[in-house]
């Protein structure tokens, strides 16, 4: 502890004031560290340490069911991937899943936000209703859409009875339709996320710009294209990025609705990894896949941010 005795010359008050000023400064300097201590500890123990151990295990043979083979593997786990059709398949499914979800959620969410930003009677109720699926869990979404897709009691049976289709469709059991059927269920839950964020941003839109556009005789589309869209740009970039990462990692719905099937058409990379972990117990290979997923995510995110900023410089 630094408590240098200050010179006595300056009367009684001065040393006290100087000392307390110093403690105050010291306290001020340590205050932010006290405030961030909880988050640092939590992140270190529950995120960064596990991530580190994933990196470590990715270089090991590690399978609790065959302990005699465990040990240093070098890059073997990574080499294994090139020959693993399931890995490449899951990568393609993941890209398709993330792409479809982000694009459709954004378009529908943007449309929905513009709709409920209009002034009409019952707007509050309409908002509460269209946003409500956002609060529903992935498992519950599965439950609800199982009831809808079920061939013996579901919606298609009902539609068949009134003459639309033949009433025998089983969308999540058919490899041709399973991906899209699952996508629709996820869209149902995911669109409100974009709608909420975009609506929030619409409400802070600069009103004078719209007036200026009106004076200049801009039509509806031009107002949207040249006033609304530029205003929304930041939130669109941010929300698509967050959502892309989230949909990449999201396994709740896939795990419970299709479990990756039929014929692996809905097996995304995280789902494949969790299957490796729970059934095959191949933790070493699973860790290598996790490492690759992490790198892909980080790379794509940085690329996305760069590209979107690049566009803003041009515009």
């Amino acid at each position, binding site marked *: 502890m630094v408590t240098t005795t200050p010179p006595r010359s300056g009367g009684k008050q001065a040393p006290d004031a100087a000392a307390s000023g110093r403690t105050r400064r010291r306290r001020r300097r340590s205050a932010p560290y006290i*405030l*961030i201590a909880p*988050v640092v500890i939590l992140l270190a123990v*529950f*995120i960064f340490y596990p991530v580190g151990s*994933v990196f470590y295990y990715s270089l090991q043979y590690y399978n609790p069911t065959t302990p005699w083979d465990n040990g240093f593997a070098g890059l073997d786990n990574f080499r294994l991937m090139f020959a693993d059709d399931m890995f490449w398949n899951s990568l393609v499914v993941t890209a398709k899943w993330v792409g479809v979800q982000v694009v459709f959620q954004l378009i529908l969410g943007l449309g929905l936000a513009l709709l409920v930003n209009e002034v009409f009677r019952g707007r509050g109720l309409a908002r509460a209703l269209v946003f409500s699926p956002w609060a529903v869990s992935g498992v*519950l979404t599965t439950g609800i859409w199982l009831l809808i897709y079920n061939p013996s009691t579901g919606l298609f049976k009902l539609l068949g009875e009134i003459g639309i289709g033949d009433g025998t469709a089983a969308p999540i059991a058919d490899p041709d339709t399973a991906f899209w059927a699952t996508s629709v269920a996820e869209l149902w839950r995911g669109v409100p996320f974009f709608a909420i964020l975009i609506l929030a*941003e619409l409400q802070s839109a600069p009103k004078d710009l719209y007036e200026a556009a009106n004076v200049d005789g801009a039509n509806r589309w031009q107002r949207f294209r040249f006033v609304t869209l530029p205003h929304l740009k930041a939130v669109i970039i941010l929300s698509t990025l967050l959502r892309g990462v989230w949909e990449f990692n999201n396994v709740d719905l896939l795990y419970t609705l299709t479990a990756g099937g039929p014929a692996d058409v809905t097996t995304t990379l995280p789902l494949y990894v969790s299957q490796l972990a729970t059934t095959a117990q191949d933790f070493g290979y699973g860790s290598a896949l996790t490492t690759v*997923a*992490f790198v892909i995510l980080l790379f794509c995110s940085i690329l996305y941010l760069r590209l979107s900023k690049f566009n803003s410089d041009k515009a």
Partner: protein
Amino acid sequence: MTTTTERPPTPIAAPKASGEPRFHRKRPRVFSVGLPLALYLLFTLVPFYWMIVFAFRPADSTSMLPWPITFDHFDTVWNTLGFSFFFKNSLIVAALSLVLTTFVALATGYALARFKFRAKIPLVMALLCSQFVPGAMLLIPLFQVFREIGLVDNLFGLIVADTVFQLPLAAMLMAGFISQIPVELEEAARVDGCSRMRAFRIIMLPLLRPGLIAVGSFAFIGSWNNFLFGLMFISSQDKFTLPVGLSYTIGSYNVDFGVLAAGGLIAAVPVVAVFAIIQKYLVQGLSAGAVKG
């Protein structure tokens, strides 16, 4: 649903300069607003309606109305399948991780918004990076950590796990909310003799209400709905949360759809109700500009 108070109409919506656009507006709005909104409402509400029908009608009925009405499915789910336990567990976990997330996010957000310190940029980087960590793929190492500290098959472990994975976003949202509030307000209070703590409590907290509601509701809904951690870390059935319980109902051979729907309704009603009440504040809070960080 308490969302009827309208904001005053915006200048765009109330054309004044020329009376002419008003004339044109009236009719096309049915097609430009009414119709698409009705279609989207249909897409949103039919699945909910389907669940309600299955939950309330007798098992052998094929009627599309929940009539004759029965509560047998709820009785089965609540008393026989243990959803009363699951409900209580979910409530405990969601409420406590709401409190924990909000407190830690508040402290972190305040430090980020109000102090200059050397670890600030590394901390922000760490928060951003942890957004990219695939939680679903960390289950094995996480499980090992939780086993070490004895939080496996323990509701408190779930609370911690939920909190940790919500924290990065919550903290950054909170930092955004706090930096929206002029620092002068706080300084004025401190010049008047308030301690930093007191200035925070009487000046900042009331102004932060929309932010607290937004972050708190994200935390509550996120942890009420979390499935994977519950599935991996909890093994005894009396500690299951609702999503885990529901997934076993879904996964059983011969799914009883009435029971499934009733269980789903029990899981849905609290969050959908909470959300319907807070969604207005959520939009307002996010609209304060916090999204831009």
